[in-house]
């Protein structure tokens, strides 16, 4: 399956089968849920951002295909230690990667975000773009949705 091997390299299959941080964060500070109406997938993203404005914990939950799951899993790993502004930049970079915009992706890339390249195969499959970016867009929504602290 030469073509789809690009889409499903070992690291993607591994994240898909054994997703990291697939759970809820009980004391999360930020939360959002969204779905992909074309396939019924849904994903929830919860974040715990501390007073110093750093993401200390990131998790996702829901029902999704291997691509969406792997992308979400990878994302939660990359988010920890980032500020919301850095998280948004990370999304910009991921979006460029998924869209096949290599120049924009590489611009200012660090070693950590280079891990995202395992998902670069998606650019050849425009219909899967939504799968790959589902968790990321949910993360952006979560950043705007701070839970009231009582």
């Amino acid at each position, binding site marked *: 399956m030469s073509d789809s091997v690009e889409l499903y390299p070992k690291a993607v299959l591994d994240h898909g089968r054994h997703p990291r941080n697939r759970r809820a964060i009980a004391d999360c500070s930020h939360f959002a849920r969204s779905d992909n109406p074309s396939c*019924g997938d849904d994903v929830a993203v919860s974040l715990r951002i501390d007073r110093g404005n750093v993401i200390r914990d990131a998790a996702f939950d829901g*029902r999704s295909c291997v691509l969406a799951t792997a992308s979400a899993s990878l994302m939660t790993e990359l988010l920890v230690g980032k500020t919301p502004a850095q998280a948004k930049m990370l999304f910009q970079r991921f979006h460029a990667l998924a869209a096949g915009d290599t120049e924009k992706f590489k611009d200012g890339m660090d070693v950590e975000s280079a891990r995202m390249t395992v998902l670069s195969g998606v650019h050849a499959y425009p219909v899967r773009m939504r799968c790959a970016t589902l968790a990321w867009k949910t993360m952006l929504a979560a950043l705007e949705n701070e839970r009231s602290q009582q």
Partner: protein
Amino acid sequence: MKAAAEEIERPSALKSIDGGGSVSVCHGPDRGGDHAGFYDVEAVRADFPILGETMHGYPLAYLDSAASAQKPFQVIEAEYAFYARDYANIHRGFYVLSQRATELYDQARRKVQAFLNARHEHEIVFTRGATDAINLVAASFGEAFLNEGDEVLLTGLEHHSNIVPWQLLREKKGIVLKAAPVNDAGEVPLDEFIRLLGPRTRLAAFAHVSNVLGTVLPIAEMIRAAHEAGAKVLIDAAQSVAHMKIDVQALDCDFLVFSGHKLYGPTGIGVLYGKEELLDAMPPYQGGGDMIASVSLERTTYAPLPAKFEAGTPPIAQAVGLGAAINYVTAVGLHRIGAHEAGLLAYATERLSAIKPLTIVGTAVQKASVLSFVMDGVHPHDIAQMLDSRGVAVRAGHHCAQPLMARLGLPATVRATFGLYNTTAEVDALTEALEEVEVMFLQ
């Protein structure tokens, strides 16, 4: 006047099936077709240019005809010839071309009439598709005959196109929607349907064949029961028209709709069959040219059927193409096509059942040409993606039938569907690719 669009000579399946003759002579219903005997699928395939394509280096196995069927060259060339030699706008043209185009358009309508065995030619209304036809009935029949509290009875396995138009009407008129339940096998039990027919049921609207599960509904019995309850009946034949013979007079349905593109014809054309007395009593759906008898700024008199429902320039070339598609399936023979597809469905059911993590969804006793399935632990989108890399084209998702998916407790399925050109070798390709999916994602 002799219209030219059909005078195309080429080697074709129709010759080998008919034992000679050309494609242009297949006018009578079932001519040469529906006798038992050898079904030459390779000859049929030779009529479909796209089936020679390769995908990712593999021969195309097109198993998505329920979404849209591929086109034989007879259809492609009928449209080509029409544009190349006979095209003009129809009606009121004083020149030869317009008369020729009008004649071919009317001829296409007569082909549909014969195909469905409608009593009158003017009971056939050309629409943009099945969706458009249902919207026409919802708007126009709804306007004339449905009032607040009146009930429209659907089933739980309808395509969104036979749900949303009625919901729009509900918002406008306050009608009540009911849906006959679906059992675990994916059938609509007749007694449950009958139980929901009440004194206020004005219309029952349901699919002939489920686009997700392939369930064939017992429409003859359902129509009879609905009529006994005093309700009119609309049949959504989008998924059945390419697989089985439909006789609207024998069925006695009040409306029947289908799309051209699922019948190996062009996109952009569909059919509404309606009984004359109902269509006559219904107001126009859209206003415009061609649907009027006379217009003054104060008052408009509408044209008689079917023009009353065909405002504006219709899909003329698409109607001609649809006529060619009807010629094609009629010549191959719908009974033979149905038997061929039933064989493929049985073979595919057997082969896929041997794949351990795979579950076939929809086990109705009466089933046609659709095989839906899920695989434990692998998402339908990932399955479909991997099948594509082996040249196998299937659909994955909710198939525009979310209420049914909710009933089945599934967000999505993978769906393989069979048409007159599919082969057991393609079922083998599907099976082998699924075995690879199993290895890749589950082992």
